[in-house]
């Protein structure tokens, strides 16, 4: 093949043309870690200054007190059980929400009456404060089921609307190609719809996980769900154990970050697997 025959812009070679003064002094990962450590330290310092000014531990504990409390909680059986319970409930609601919303969005895309049917539901869920849903649901279902249902409710509109947007942006030109060449349903799904939906779906999965996690824990607090993070947050608040309240909150934040990372990796792996499995078939 003639080298001039190829579109070199699509295959960029490593850029060796950086001027001397443009070269970074540190490798990228080192710079990123350094930046994260500095940012984190600044916020801890602000927290410490706030604590020093307030001076009342049971209203506003110091970072040190929270870390000590977190280290005390970590090895405890109740911590392991409650974290596992909360994660299982939220992940269950999240997965049900994703499955239902993807199915609903595909059905709505191809059958307009369903889109009209789901429209008010999605609007109501988006507009209603999550606390209202939690307090209504607690009347209807056991407290263990409320976080699952609330996580489902948080996920559904986000994934549904994003998937619908992805479907509606499927290139018409490629739809025509599929129509002319008599593509099978599987080919249309894997070559037309999945590539169009994938970026919207991936973004919706990440966004909705954060929503589901926060709303699920809120549901646990309001429903006082046994063996849950929310239950211990509620107890800590009842007994003015503010350091404990902060420690549980830190645990929620760390778990949220870990869950988000796991979801990003899983969605990426899923996209690659689909592409490998169905490419050209």
């Amino acid at each position, binding site marked *: 093949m003639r080298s001039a025959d190829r*579109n070199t812009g699509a295959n960029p070679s490593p850029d060796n043309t950086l001027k001397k003064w443009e070269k970074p002094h540190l490798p990228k990962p080192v710079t990123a870690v350094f930046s994260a450590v500095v940012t984190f330290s600044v916020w801890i310092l602000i927290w410490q200054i706030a604590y020093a000014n307030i001076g009342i531990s049971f209203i506003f504990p110091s970072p040190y007190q929270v870390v000590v409390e977190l280290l005390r909680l970590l090895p405890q059986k109740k911590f392991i059980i409650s974290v596992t319970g909360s994660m299982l409930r939220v992940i269950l609601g999240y997965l049900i929400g994703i499955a239902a919303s993807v199915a609903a969005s595909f059905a709505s895309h191809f059958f307009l009456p369903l889109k009209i049917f789901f429209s008010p539901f999605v609007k109501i869920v988006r507009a209603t404060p999550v606390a209202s849903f939690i307090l209504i649901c607690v009347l209807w279902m056991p407290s263990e089921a409320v976080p699952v249902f609330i996580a489902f409710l948080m996920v559904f509109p986000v994934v549904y609307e994003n998937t619908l947007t992805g479907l509606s942006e499927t290139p018409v030109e490629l739809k025509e*190609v599929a129509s*002319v*060449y008599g593509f099978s349903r599987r080919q249309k799904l894997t070559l037309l719809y999945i590539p169009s939906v994938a970026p919207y779906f991936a973004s919706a999965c990440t966004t909705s996980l954060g929503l589901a996690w926060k709303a699920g824990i809120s549901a646990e607090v309001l429903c006082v769900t046994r063996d849950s993070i929310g239950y211990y947050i509620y107890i800590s608040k009842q007994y003015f154990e503010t350091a404990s309240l902060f420690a549980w909150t830190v645990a929620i934040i760390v778990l949220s970050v870990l869950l988000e990372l796991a979801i990003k990796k899983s969605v990426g792996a899923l996209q690659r697997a689909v592409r490998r499995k169905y490419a050209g078939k």
Partner: protein
Amino acid sequence: MPESENRSVILDSVCKSFGEKIVLKNFSLKIPYGSKTVIKGPSGCGKTTLLRILAGLIFPDHGTVTGTQGKKTAVLFQEDRLFPTLTALENVSAVVPGNSKKEVAAKILTELGLGDPENLNSYPAQLSGGMKRRCAIARALAYDADIVLLDEALKGLDAENAENCARVIHSYTADKTVVSVTHLDTSLEKDYQKVVMPMNTF
């Protein structure tokens, strides 16, 4: 009605408008089975609209099109319209009927000068404009259709590649009905029956 007449593609008083703009008005044409027809005319005269009607992608407002129903139709669009998530080989093999999809696709791509493994396994974004065009041509030929519709088939190809592509298209469409639309004079259509569409003044 004789068999060959029955298999001809016949456009009878076809009209098509887009909003206020009339693109085709009472256009009639008979394309005999197995014939090669080139429809020529200036840009904007309705050639592509006619091709899209023949492909069944749009329908005429008035008039009838017969002889295309139940027949396999391949379309080489004016734009290449390759699937960005598939390699050149996969783009072509995706339309090949039956078994040995990849072998058939690789054979046609090789004839069109894209047989190098690097080209076969390249994604459209990694191919030049001419390579993408040849890949799109390969896809239209690989479908083994009864009717082949070509829209500016050799657009963007250099003289050497255009000559080779014309030869390959001839060899793969010898027994097929071919309708090509173009506003250029290319080697592909030199023996085709010529139909000139005037610039519409509706």
